[in-house]
């Protein structure tokens, strides 16, 4: 009885699926799918290597400092970093005094006095987070704190995007005449829908002046440095995580081998 019932229920589902499949197959056969311009021209990020990659990778603090400089002088005009506190910058190798100076010369914190209702500004302290950046009337550009974790291949994506601006390929216009980049947007094949509002931020060599002992601030170098910095802002505990990981795995390996030997010991002479 239960078998008859089960076969009937089974037929209900399988026939419904076959019906869906037949409809889908009919649609696929009769209505050719239109290739979209994003599908044809979107590129996945370039292969980029960062010092922090891999199970052994660690941050290159010198590079993070350069990247922070690029962020501060270029990106910070529009993009906030609200999850990062100035005190966190000590991890980049800055001293307490340097962090204090960076905070006090950095963006101001909004203040509000609940008694008087006065609104004002004050200099940032090391304990403050980077304040939000408002872009009146146009909506705020995305916060960058987590950007490299919020995109597939985060670091490589940021680097590819920053250096990936180009003119629209002639072939694109030929195949998709409607897909011309609208005014005010900029073509970039690494962006999901190919056109983004941000103009190319890194415009030329020497846009940022690196201190002595650093590589030349070419666009490629600045882009890579700021990408490395944004990997750090998204995962500041990366170094500590990997440092902790090795001894933990070492101990577990040791304990597991001991456990295996104990297991062999207990079962010695018992067939199974």
């Amino acid at each position: 009885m239960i078998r008859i019932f089960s076969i009937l229920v089974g037929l209900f589902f399988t026939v419904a699926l076959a019906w869906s499949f037949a409809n889908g197959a009919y649609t696929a056969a009769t209505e050719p799918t239109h290739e979209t311009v994003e599908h044809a021209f979107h590129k996945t990020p370039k292969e980029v290597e960062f010092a922090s990659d891999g199970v052994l990778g660690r941050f290159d603090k010198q590079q993070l400092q350069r990247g922070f400089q690029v962020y501060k002088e270029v990106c910070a005009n529009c993009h906030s970093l609200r999850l990062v506190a100035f005190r966190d910058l000590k991890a980049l190798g800055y001293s307490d005094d340097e962090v204090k100076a960076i905070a006090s010369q950095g963006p101001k914190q909004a203040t509000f006095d609940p008694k008087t209702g006065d609104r004002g500004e004050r200099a940032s302290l090391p304990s403050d987070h980077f304040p939000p950046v408002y872009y009146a009337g146009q909506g705020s550009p995305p916060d960058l704190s987590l950007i490299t974790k919020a995109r597939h291949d985060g670091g490589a994506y940021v680097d590819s995007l920053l250096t990936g601006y180009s003119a629209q390929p002639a072939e694109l216009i030929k195949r998709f005449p409607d897909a011309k980049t609208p005014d005010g947007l900029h073509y970039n094949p690494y962006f999901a829908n190919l056109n983004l509002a941000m103009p190319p931020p890194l415009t030329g060599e020497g846009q940022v002046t690196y201190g002595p002992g650093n590589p030349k601030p070419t666009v490629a170098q600045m882009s890579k440095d700021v990408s490395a910095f944004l990997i750090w802002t998204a995962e500041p505990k990366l170094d500590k995580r990997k440092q902790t990981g090795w001894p933990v795995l070492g101990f577990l390996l040791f304990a597991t081998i001991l456990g295996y030997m104990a297991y062999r010991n207990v079962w010695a002479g018992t067939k199974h």
Partner: protein
Amino acid sequence: MAHDAGTDAPELHAGNGAGDGVRRRDFINIAAVSAAGVGGLAVLLPLISQMAPSADVLAESSTEIDISAIKPGQAIKGIFRKQPVFIRNLTPAEIAAADKVDISTLRDPQTLAERTKEGKENWLITMGVCTHLGCVPLGAGEGEVKGEFGGYFCPCHGSSYDTAARIRKGPAPKNLQVPEYAFNSDTVVKIG
């Protein structure tokens, strides 16, 4: 309680006929259990209804939107009940395209006139919530794709809506829902 009721002494009911007493005692037991049951159910009521939308959430159930700045062919996204609502000023061409469709071929047959207010056929006001699984379709914002029927396109599972926001292709079962609304004036619409 049940214990007391079950083993109570017969002398309490002296004076009544024996059968009568038994019946009355049964009745009392049943009534006591029923009362406990009713009490239990009554306690469930607030426990269940606390999960329903609270007063502050319900208070947001109507909203007024200024539509004076929307030019023909444009649309805006408003917020109604914490969900997007699309307000679209249709061009005559879009109205004609919607009226041209034979409604008997539609999955959810409705004319544009049924989906708009009389005399305001150019104002198409719908929820921006795909009737499939609740994603926000594209097509109301500047530069967003409108799908192959010129209305809205849901990126989640590929449902396409036409210029009357009626479902034309994809898995969604219904047209984009038209919320209750009224024009307070020519430039302000009250939704909800």
